[in-house]
């Protein structure tokens, strides 16, 4: 017997470029797994964050550091636990960005599948020359 599960709609995630220090006890987060692919003009990060919806994602950029936080949706558990192997913690992971990344062009999106996709555009060689000066 096969069933086709229902799904809600996905949504774009807004990227907040701020120097805001992310709050919370580091022990209250787990580190999400990442897969990285590279194209000629951009780098793509996939972060495995099951349980996180678009409203639970927070990206912040402080100089060369990209912080990604994903907060799991709250789950109601009124039944008795029998067996548990899932990690219930929220997610957080840091990335160091080189000067080759166009920080202002970073975008992120999250569909229904719990896989956060972050696009890091590379600076072209022309714009890169001017950006060296601008480097934070």
């Amino acid at each position: 017997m096969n069933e086709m599960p229902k799904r809600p709609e996905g949504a774009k995630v807004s990227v907040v470029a701020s120097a805001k220090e992310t709050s919370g006890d580091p022990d209250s987060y787990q580190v999400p797994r990442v897969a990285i692919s590279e194209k000629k003009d951009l780098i793509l990060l996939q972060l495995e964050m099951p349980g996180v919806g678009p409203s639970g994602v927070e990206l912040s950029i402080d100089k060369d550091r990209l912080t990604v936080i994903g907060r799991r949706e709250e789950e109601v558990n009124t039944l008795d636990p029998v067996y548990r192997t899932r990690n219930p913690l929220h997610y957080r992971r840091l990335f160091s960005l080189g000067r080759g990344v166009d920080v202002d062009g970073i975008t992120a999106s999250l569909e229904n599948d719990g896989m956060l996709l972050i696009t890091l555009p590379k600076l072209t060689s022309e714009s890169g020359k001017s950006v060296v000066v601008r480097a934070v």
Partner: protein
Amino acid sequence: MNLRSLIPSDRRSTGTGDQNGHRTMDTGIPPVLALTAEMPSSNVSELLEARYSPKVDVYQNRDFYIVRLDIAGMKENELKVGIESGFLTISGRRVPADGLRDLVRSEIIFSEFEQMIHLTEDVFVEGIDATYRYGVLEIKIPRRHAGGVRKVAINSEITSMAAGGGRS
């Protein structure tokens, strides 16, 4: 600029003998992206495992089982849920999304998977209900000795007939 050469060498799939990993700036090439020291809590063998094994929670009370699996990166029609003789089976194949196949690094395991969960024999198969939301598959299964009116999943019957799939 090639990201492959910029990833810390201890993170590449094959050992290069450089166990201390992180590259210094004297390569002359600023890294486009570097991972910080924080890594998933999994050990190395888990990262290298060939087969994906979704994490699962099982809850129960007198009337229901609720099973939740963390399975990010799927489409709902790629997930198969079956139940037979008290065994709940969740299976599928996780593949990278289109345009994301050329991975230079992956801690995420893309493979077929099958997770089997032994429940009691009193599960009410026709009442099973599955929802995939933000990478979490939640399956609710009524138990037979539950009193009152039972929900019958007429929609799923039609769906499986339309798809030409026979019910087991």
